[in-house]
């Protein structure tokens, strides 16, 4: 039998954190898809990782830095070009505080 890795309640919870609202049918569909992905990840558990440092990055590079130098910023108009709403050089959003 296939184990359940993520419940529909958990999907609803994570959706809520991401400000997403799903219909019941969607919640079930995503739960099933996420379960499939997570089960696939189980394959990794078959590898013996005893004594192996957890990997945090795909490439071995360390200490990639930029110098503290000011470069060019975007023109405000360009910065706001994708904003669904803008006003007075600002992005405008539904009020986020009561």
């Amino acid at each position, binding site marked *: 039998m296939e184990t359940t890795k993520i419940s529909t309640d958990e999907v609803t919870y994570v959706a809520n954190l991401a400000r997403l609202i799903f219909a019941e049918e969607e919640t079930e569909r995503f739960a099933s898809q996420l379960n499939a992905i997570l089960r696939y990840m189980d394959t990794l558990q078959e590898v013996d990782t005893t004594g192996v440092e957890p990997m945090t990055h795909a490439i071995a590079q360390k200490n990639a830095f930029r110098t503290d130098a000011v470069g060019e910023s975007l023109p405000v108009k360009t910065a706001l070009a994708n904003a669904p709403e803008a006003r007075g050089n600002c992005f405008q959003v539904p*009020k986020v505080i009561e």
Partner: protein
Amino acid sequence: MEYEPVIGLEVHAQLLTDAKIFCGCSTKFGAAPNSHTCPICLGMPGVLPVLNKKVVEFMMKMALATNCRLNRGCLFARKNYFYPDLPKGYQISQYAQPPAEHGWVEVEIAGGKKRIGITRIHMEEDAGKLMHDEFSPVSRVDLNRTGVPLIEIVSEPDIRGAEEAAAYLRRLHETLVYLEICDGNMEEGSFRCDANVSLRPKGSETFGTRAELKNMNSFRNVQRALEYEIKRQQYLLEGGGSVVQETRLWDDTAGVSHPMRGKEEAHDYRYFPDPDLVPVVIDDAWVEAVRQTLPELPLERRERFVRDYQIPAYDAGVLTASRQLADYYEEVVRLSAEPKLASNWVMGEILRFLNEDKKEIRACPITPAALAELISLIKEGQISGKMAKEVVDQMYRTGAAPGAIIKEKGLVQITDEAALSATIAAVIAANPGQLAQYRAGKEKVFGFFVGQVMKATQGKANPQLINDLLKKMLAG
């Protein structure tokens, strides 16, 4: 039952870099909204943040100054939450493997010194600024601050009262400013503080339920907010109630705090390592190189001033309030070799002028050399203390050297005994009535003669010399 407050503080300090932490946009405060943004700090897809090296160095300075252990490696993580001040949907911060841990600072409290532990210091990016419209249901977002570098300094829950909290904050603040890595401006949000507060029965080892306090933008507000919070929890507990774990916002005008609404849901940040940023490795050589750049810290400097210059602890505290002021004072001492006089003049006239004009010491028109020259002139008796006050006033207003002002105003103190004797003889001759009174034993008349001589010499005579000569000559 007697309760004991347990307080831990989280301080966010904006770092004084020119550019943001992961891109080349300027960090300058007060620019037109969204004029300091680029695809990286706007969180456009496909961009690559790269860490500003100076941010690491500034973090290391603070870590060393607060006795932290610098870990060899550290990682950046994504702290996920959705809020309009954060265009990416996550803040780049550090979580597991912070760069600095296990530090402490010493604070002066009633009855001695106390060590407050520092749990960790880490680097992160600041979020944008929200402005809520008063009349319509919208908020406006300015992302200039997004990506401005911050260090977060987390204390151990070692703080036992509002005053102690204020002392700890002042210590952090002056250290950051001394290190010249943060401008410390609380009004502009360069130095921010959140507090975790709980109460427990005195003697208990376990912690009570805590409330988190935000929005305290001055030392005074932190102290007031904490005093309020301690009382609030005490009333709750004494009344048989319990403290709810929540975030509360301090309302400065009303002098109360309210539970925060709107933003708060049970936060679940789902931190994970940021794949865009490679690990930072800090080796011993780098730590040593940064250690070499550390200035003398305020507490050490204060103690050295008391020891070497023999000035009171209070004076040393005032003079070391900023690194520039302490440098100024020390330069005057070096040039005049008069630590006490230098302290009197800097703390008296100089700070008074600057306070009146709301100026910083670096904008003071009187150079340390000019002040040292003035002190030498007083010491040599060329001018009296009274004249010096007049001279220093001119120096401040015109930036001229004391010697030039004295010459121009003809302020040279008369120290020539023969010349002064002649003036005194004339004054005595002109006032035979007062002379008779004095000789009859009415000693108060002496003051009258001093006044007359001062007037005749336009205040230029050395007061001590007047006194000596007058006594002799009046006696006949």
